C-alpha cells in the first residue's frame, strides 16, 4: 500500500526531516501549519504546493489534507513547539481516524508520561537521555517503570532515594503523597524488604516500589527527590 506523510508544524526540524525523507525516496509528504506566512514562504520555495494553512485539530481540515485518504496509509508526524498542539492533534488522528502510525515531538519532559498514557508512544524527545545523565549525575534519580498495567496507563514504579532527598527520615507508613499512588514496600540498601505499613523510616539508598499513573512520573520524581527544580 502507498504511504503518505502529514507533518504538523513548519520549522527547521520538520524541514530537515522532509529533506531526509526525500533522500530516502519517500516523497508523498505535506506540511500543515496555522501560520499563513510560514505556509506561503515554504510553498514559494517549491515548484508545487507542499504546505497547507489550517488548524491541525480541525477534523474538516485534516480530511481536506488527506488524513483519511483511501488506498494509502497515513503517517502523521506532529513537530510543533507546543506540546498541547502535538498531543491533541495526535489523539484526534489516532482515535477519530484510527491512524496507527502517529509520531510526535515532545518538548517538555514533564509531558512525556502524558503522551504515553494516552497511547501516543512513538515519541521524539532527543534531550531525554542526556538530561537523565545530567540529572542522575547531580544526585537526582528518576523513577524506573518496572511493569505496565496493561491498557490502564498505570505502572509499577521503582524509585531510589537519593542522598539529598527531603523524604529521608520519614516514616514510610505515614507518607502522604499529593497524587494518587499506592506505596507497596521499601527495600533497604542491603536488599531487605519492608511493608509500607511498617513503622520504619526511609533512608538514603532505599528503593520504594509504587503503583501510580504514568502521568505522575514527574510528580514522583519531585516528591521523592524533594527538589522543586529537579
Amino acid at each position, binding site marked *: 500500500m502507498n504511504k503518505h506523510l502529514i507533518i504538523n508544524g513548519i520549522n527547521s526540524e520538520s524541514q530537515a526531516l522532509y529533506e531526509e525523507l526525500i533522500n530516502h525516496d519517500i516523497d508523498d509528504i505535506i506540511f500543515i501549519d496555522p501560520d499563513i506566512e510560514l505556509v506561503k514562504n515554504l510553498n514559494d520555495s517549491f515548484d508545487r504546493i507542499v504546505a497547507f494553512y489550517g488548524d491541525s*485539530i480541525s477534523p474538516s481540515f485534516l480530511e481536506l489534507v488527506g488524513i483519511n485518504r483511501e488506498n494509502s496509509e497515513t503517517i502523521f508526524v506532529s513537530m510543533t513547539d*507546543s506540546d*498541547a498542539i502535538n498531543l491533541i492533534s495526535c*489523539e484526534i488522528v489516532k482515535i477519530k481516524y484510527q491512524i496507527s502510525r502517529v509520531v510526535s515531538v515532545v518538548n517538555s519532559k514533564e509531558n512525556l508520561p502524558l503522551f504515553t498514557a494516552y497511547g501516543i508512544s512513538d515519541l521524539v524527545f532527543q534531550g531525554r537521555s542526556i538530561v537523565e545523565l545530567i540529572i542522575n549525575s547531580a544526585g537526582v534519580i528518576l523513577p524506573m517503570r518496572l511493569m505496565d498495567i496493561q491498557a490502564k496507563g498505570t505502572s509499577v514504579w521503582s524509585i531510589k532515594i537519593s542522598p539529598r532527598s527531603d523524604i529521608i527520615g520519614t516514616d514510610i507508613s505515614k507518607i502522604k503523597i499529593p*497524587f*494518587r499512588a499506592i506505596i507497596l514496600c521499601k527495600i533497604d540498601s542491603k536488599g531487605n524488604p519492608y511493608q509500607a505499613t511498617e513503622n520504619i523510616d526511609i533512608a538514603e539508598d532505599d528503593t520504594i516500589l509504587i503503583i501510580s499513573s504514568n*502521568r505522575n512520573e514527574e510528580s514522583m520524581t519531585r516528591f521523592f527527590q524533594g527538589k522543586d527544580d529537579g
Partner: protein
Amino acid sequence: MNILLIGSRKTTNFLGEQLLKGKVDKISFVDNSVYNYLNWDIAHSEKVNFFSGNIQEINTLIKSGLDDADIVIVDSGDDTSNLFIGQKAKINFDTIIFVILEDLSVSEVFESIGLKILNSHDLKVKKILNEIEKF
C-alpha cells in the same frame, strides 16, 4: 466538595458564581495571571481562592489545589489548551474533569477518554450541578 476552575474568562466567572450557590466547600481559581480576578464579585467570598502560574505545568495545578479537587473545570483559552490541561489535570482517577470547548467537532474523541465536554456557546451549568449532587 472542592472545585478547581482553570481560567479567568467571563464564562469562568459566571460558572464560579453559579457553583457558589450550590453545596460547595471551596472553589479555587487559577490562571497565568490573577489580573482578571480583581474585579470579580465572588473574590470577596470566603470559599474562593485565587492562584496564578503557568497553568500548563503540573506544579501550578497542584499548588492550586488539584489534588483536593473533586471537580476540575478548564476554561482557560483556546480549545487545544483546554483539552491539554484537562488531560494533564486528571492525576486522580475519580476526579471529574469538565472541559469547555468552542468547537464541538472533536468532543466525542475526548469524551471517549473520560473528559466531560461543555459547549461554550450554550453553557449547561446543570450538567456540573448534577455531578455535584452525586457527592
